[in-house]
């Protein structure tokens, strides 16, 4: 069971990650920064002001025009890329049928996205760290930098994916997103671009965790993965719904009216998150679990400006 094939990975090589508000890395990366910097690539001129480094003065221009201009060049920087994958039982959904993974498996898509993003980051010289978190603790990878770490990242994800999916869900892996995010915010040494891949189906309030991350200087892209069965439930009759994660039960009678109400509820919930994210500059995108990950990277995230 492979998460990626080579052809897909090759496509990723052309992509880079971009973060608007993350401060420059300490090491020179080989990805373009939005800051003007010290690289050799010309960007622009500006008037000299007192205190500017005279080494940056364009003497040729000064000789011709007798006016001092500072020559701006592109700054090249590295980026800390954090990829957080919710690996709780609710992400391990829908369950496998007849030893075949469901095509719309949420965790698989999450892993694929994590791999893809991490790979892009590694290719562009960013510092990439990946964390799978749930109640059982975090499994961390990285931070690593550089193309050679690409395969180790992918095999890390594949191994963990196999481990997680082979487990029988028994309420062991829960997420309290709120706590996990705050914990991560405190531990991580270098804030950067943070991808949170989760279904957000967690009892706590994810917003506080996100706020903590923001306050630590992270730029966040939230990939909200929901399976089609969650977007429009394929259920009917009088049911006692059991939460695979918490074991909590909800008794509902499913008829068209109830389903309509569910759809309203879902839209409202999503709307709240989206509004929250929009207000804080968090890139939010809802991802249906049956969407191919290549499409998401190539189109969805690009549209958000997270990937260039």
């Amino acid at each position, binding site marked *: 069971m492979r998460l990626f094939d080579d052809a897909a990975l090759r496509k990723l090589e052309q992509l880079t990650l971009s973060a608007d508000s993350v401060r420059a890395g300490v090491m020179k990366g080989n990805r373009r920064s939005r800051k003007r910097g010290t690289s050799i690539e010309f960007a622009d001129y500006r008037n000299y002001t007192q205190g500017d480094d005279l080494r940056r003065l364009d003497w040729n221009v000064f000789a011709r025009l007798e006016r001092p201009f500072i020559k701006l060049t592109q700054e090249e920087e590295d980026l800390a890329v954090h990829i957080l994958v919710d690996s709780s039982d609710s992400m391990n959904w829908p369950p496998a049928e007849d030893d075949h993974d469901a095509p719309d498996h949420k965790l698989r898509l999450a892993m694929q996205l994590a791999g893809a993003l991490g790979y892009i980051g590694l290719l562009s010289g960013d510092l990439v760290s990946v964390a799978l978190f749930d109640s059982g603790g975090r499994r961390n990878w990285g931070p690593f930098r550089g193309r050679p770490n690409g395969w180790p990242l992918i095999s890390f994800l594949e191994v963990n994916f196999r481990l997680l999916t082979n487990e029988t869900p028994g309420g062991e892996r829960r997420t309290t997103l709120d706590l996990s995010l705050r914990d991560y915010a405190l531990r991580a040494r270098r804030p950067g671009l943070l991808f949170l891949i989760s279904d957000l189906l967690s*009892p706590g309030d994810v917003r506080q965790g996100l706020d903590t991350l923001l306050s630590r200087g992270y730029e966040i892209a939230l990939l909200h993965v929901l399976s089609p069965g969650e977007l429009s439930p394929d259920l009917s009759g009088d049911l006692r719904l059991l939460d695979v994660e918490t074991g909590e039960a909800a008794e509902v009678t499913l008829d068209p009216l109830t389903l309509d109400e569910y759809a309203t509820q879902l839209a409202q919930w999503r709307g709240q998150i989206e509004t929250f994210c929009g207000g804080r500059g968090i890139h939010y995108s809802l991802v249906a679990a049956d969407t191919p990950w290549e499409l998401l990277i190539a189109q969805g995230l690009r549209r958000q400006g997270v990937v260039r």
Partner: protein
Amino acid sequence: MSLLAPAALALGLLAIPIILLYMLRLRRREQVISSTLLWRELVRDRTANAPWQRLRRNLLLLLQLLILAALVLALARPYWQSAAGVEGDLIVLLDSSASMQANDGENGATRFDVARAEVERLIDGMSGSDRMTLIAAGRAPVVLAAMTSDRKLLRQALDGAAAENNSADWAAAFSLAAASSQGLAEPRMVIVSDGGLPEALPSLPGEVEFIPVGRSDENLALSALAARPGEAALDLLVTVANKGQATGQALLSLYIDGALFDSRRVTVDGNQDSHLTWSIPATAEVIEARLEPATGTSDYLNVDNRAWSVSGGQATRRVLLVGEENLFLERFFAVMPGYELVRMPGSDFEQAAESGETFDLTLFDGVPVPATLPEGSILVVNPQPGGEGDPAPAIQVTRTFPATAVTYLASSPLLTDVDWRGINIAEAQAVEPNGLEVVVAAEGGPLLLAGEIDGRRVAVLTFDLHRSDLPLQIAFPVIMANITDWLNPGRMVTIGENPQPGTVVSLLPSARAESITVTLPDGTVTEMANPDASGPILFSDTGQTGLYTVTYRLGPDDIRSEQFAINFFNPEESRIRPADTITLGQEEIRSGGDGFLNRREIWPWLLLAGLAILMLEWWITYRRGAKRPSFLKVR
């Protein structure tokens, strides 16, 4: 609304298993899902507006319980007490016998009113295609309206109906109803009656229903009133019958010729008779008895509280024959009905006259007519001159003459149908007319005279019957009948004993009578067709009880009248006890209680409603299923 089979409601307990099944069904299937986060929100919302939601959630249960309710109700057979009830072809037999006049209804309504109201309700309940035949079962059953669905016509017919003073002829009414029902697929007979149907009635075709009317059996009745000539007076017998159960008291008043004669208080035990007798003057003509119930005594039938008797009507007229035996005259009066002949020799007449005994007709045959004429009419045959020293007779004889060839025949009622030509007379007495009119005259003198002397009618045959061949002629009974009829007109009314309302009365007026009118007890005057001199006139409009006065005119000034009485002496109809059941053939028909007929069962509608709900339930279930074909992943 009432139920015909309330026991079926117990089947409503089937709701318990349905609810139990529902509760079993509602043990929800467990379904593992990724998260109940959103669902919990939903459930929280739901419980906020719980009552409606719970109801809606159990809509199917509700519908199933409704179906059950509809079915159970249908089994219980509810019906409406409304006026809607008549279906199909209805033949209504409306009892119009005399007992239906009993006013034991509310506010003094008669049973007939109540019965009419019942029929009115039947008419109201008719729908468009229903038809009704209305038969009034009286003395002669009448079809008031035949097989019509025209309600207006039926109501008119019903309004025109009235209770009679007779017993109903139920056998005839039944055959009329049976005849009316011929050709009908499902005739329904409805008998509206207070009972009193005779035993051994044939059964009726179709379904028979019985609507009883009447509530009480309390009734006091005059069951007999008879006057009989006794010694010097009339003996009157009055019978008061109590047809009810309770002892009744009443005031019995006797009116003679319109004036109150006597009143007595009568107490009659339940189901007993009380007989009272009076001696009343022989001159009494019209005797009327009135019964007025005392306070505290219920008497619901009024028609049997009055009775009349016309005396003399049936009394024989007494004829005194003064003279020797006369075979012809004695035979004649023996043959003539209503005459009683007494004969005495002429020598005894003086004594007899002093005794004060009166006769309707005195016949002097071959004796001198006394100067003082007796009461009553007088027929003189072969008058004789009085003896020496006696007072001059009323009919003075001067001589005897033999020339008896008839020279003059007056147009007189005495000569009606008389052929005088073949009569031969040997000799006759010549008499002084003395104010009498000559009816037949011969050469020698009058042969027959007639007229009035001192207010008495007098006829004189001036010859000896034995000395003529008149008694051998056919003319003899005719002329004698004419003479006696003229002298003492017989009663014109021939009526049976104890005539009941509706009896046919035979009127046999004098052949000369013109313009016969009958005044009914209520004052209505009926003019009879001018009789053809032959045969009696039959008068049948005797439905009312009371005195009838027959008036006819013999001449311009000769107007006579006669009375006869029709009494309600009908023990069967006076017994007004209402019946709950009637027996037709072998079948006893019970009344279905009040409004028995007027129930309209609604179970078909309930079944329809049940079916409709069933379809609704199916549709709802189908919609739920169809929208979401379920291949549920149950773990």
